[in-house]
């Protein structure tokens, strides 16, 4: 036990004396939260919109008036035809367009309802989704005004043309994503590098020749990064609550317990990686490519999984962060209890156990 403490103390010396590690540990989470929270906010304002109004009646004028009244849209010059719309989309002048058919007013009274075409530039899918949602609610509002008693059969059916991203991204979903990413960086990348550095330096042989047990070497390496991951976790939570005014709805105890479980999964991965390679650079590369990239892409926090090719959707099932992301989203943002996340928790437990067993078994006692 005393030996282990001496070892852990040494690990902390390493961490606190390495500026790069410190920067990754404490700079990264703060920068990421601020970036995702403010710079990459999915609330959109001042969207350029053009109207192709083939009807030019009272209804279309009122709808256009409603669109321009808020601060979300800037209504540009009306377009004359589709070709012009397309050109202006290409030029980046407008990000969305609304097309009214010729017989809009008369269609309103017909059983099938009137159709409006809403076109959005979905090269930025998140913005496009938000834009469409705004327009939908404006049109829905107008429909209600027309039909306060819900007796008449006025109906406007917006036909939405979007290339992808049908999931409505709430602006706070990035927080669990960032947490998962930070755990990956601290627990997987930094841990694997810390172990491999000893191999590179040659100090690993000294440790293996010493009476200190090899498994204890792994534990001594893992404990500091577990602690540091939790410190990062608390920093992110504090930033989320006090800077971004996020309301944590679910149980804090559950959130912490699930996080520790995920950290252990990440640590096991880090230890496994460190067993597979002998150089810090390779360890870093494997962590980055093999762990962090999937976390970014395949958890669903930046890009919606539903619209990816089937292969990637299937691939995403083996990415542990996907489950952690969904757990934290459910508990922290939706306030759900353990009964809603037990399946994901079970999967994480199985993954952690598997990875840890593999890491310990692979740990070779070689010079």
């Amino acid at each position, binding site marked *: 036990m005393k030996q282990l403490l001496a070892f852990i103390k040494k690990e902390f010396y390493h961490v606190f004396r390495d500026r790069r590690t410190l920067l990754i540990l404490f700079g990264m989470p703060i920068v990421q939260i601020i970036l995702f929270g403010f710079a990459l906010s999915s609330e959109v304002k001042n969207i350029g919109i053009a109207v192709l109004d083939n009807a030019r009646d009272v209804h279309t004028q009122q709808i256009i008036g409603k669109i321009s009244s808020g601060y979300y849209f800037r209504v540009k010059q009306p377009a004359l035809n589709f070709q012009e719309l397309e050109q202006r989309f290409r030029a980046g002048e407008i990000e969305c367009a609304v097309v009214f058919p010729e017989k809009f007013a008369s269609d309103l009274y017909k059983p099938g309802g009137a159709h409006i075409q809403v076109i959005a530039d979905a090269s930025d899918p998140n913005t496009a989704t938000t834009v469409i949602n705004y327009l939908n609610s404006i049109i829905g509002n107008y429909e209600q005004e027309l039909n306060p008693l819900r007796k008449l059969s006025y109906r406007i059916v917006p036909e939405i043309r979007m290339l992808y991203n049908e999931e409505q991204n709430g602006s706070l979903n990035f927080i669990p994503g960032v947490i998962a990413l930070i755990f990956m960086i601290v627990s997987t990348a930094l841990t694997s590098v810390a172990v491999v550095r000893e191999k590179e*330096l040659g100090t690993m042989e000294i440790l293996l020749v*010493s009476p200190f047990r090899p498994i204890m070497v792994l534990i001594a390496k893992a404990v500091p990064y577990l602690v540091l991951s939790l410190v990062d976790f608390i920093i992110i939570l504090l930033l989320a609550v006090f800077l971004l005014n996020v309301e944590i709805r679910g149980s804090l105890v559950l959130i912490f317990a699930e996080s520790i479980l995920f950290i252990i999964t990440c640590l096991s991965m880090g230890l496994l990686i460190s067993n597979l390679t002998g150089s810090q650079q390779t360890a870093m590369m494997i962590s980055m490519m093999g762990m962090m990239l999937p976390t970014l892409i395949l958890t669903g926090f930046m890009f919606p999984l539903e619209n990816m090719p089937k292969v990637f959707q299937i691939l995403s099932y083996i990415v542990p962060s996907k489950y952690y992301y969904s757990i934290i989203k459910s508990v922290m943002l939706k306030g759900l209890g353990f009964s809603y996340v037990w399946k994901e928790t079970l999967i994480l437990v199985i993954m952690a156990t598997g990875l840890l067993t593999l890491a310990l078994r692979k740990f070779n006692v070689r010079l």
Partner: protein
Amino acid sequence: MKKNYSNEDLHSEQGATISGQQQKAIVCNGLTKQFGSFRAVDNISFDVNEGEIFGFLGANGAGKTTAMRILCGLSYPTSGEATVAGFDVYKQQERIKKNIGYMSQKFSLYDNLTLLENIEFYGGVYGVSRSEIKIRSSDLISTLGLQKEAHKLVSELPLGWKQKLAFSVAIFHRPKIVFLDEPTGGVDPVTRRQFWDMIYEAAANGITVFVTTHYMDEAEYCNRISVMVDGRVEALDTPANLKKQYKTNSMNDVFYELARGAKRADN
């Protein structure tokens, strides 16, 4: 492959101090290590006396490292017997590890720890008590004349000093035997000489020194040397006797004469 040693553990503590005139620090008897069809260590037998400086020579790939790994308790032999500090290499690896020190050609201290922190860490890993670490480390620092540097990071020390410090750390827990794997690689001749003074001092204090080297002048400093060729010990005697036997007055020639017959290439 492992043999059955019953009740061995009961007697192990006395193992190192069997009554007798010339006690053996290391005993190897027909030690063999086989990797598939490759015999890295081929039936080697030798004894190392307590307090002796034993040179373990051989070209790269001759099997020195494999043999040393077995003696340090890092791997099991395929067959044969060996005891280190009286402990069996099959059954008592943990005991062996407690009683040996180890230093390799790779620099083995932590650069971003201070001298004292390095000493504290290794002392701690070997289970030396905190008060004892304090006493011994201040002794060590003053013997090495490094009082001013004690709180500096090791990275600020010149290489020669680092190697001397690494050796001091390797024997900090007062092991019975210290294994030195090419300890003076890349060190200048003056520092090497000083380094060997330290080795002599350790031997005088009763620590058995088991050292590998490629420097033949260093081989001359050893009490006895063995030369490994293709996994076998081809020669074992004092440097003087070996030179006589091979009718030459330099260890270089002895080594060359022996290693020339080697069939194994590097690695």
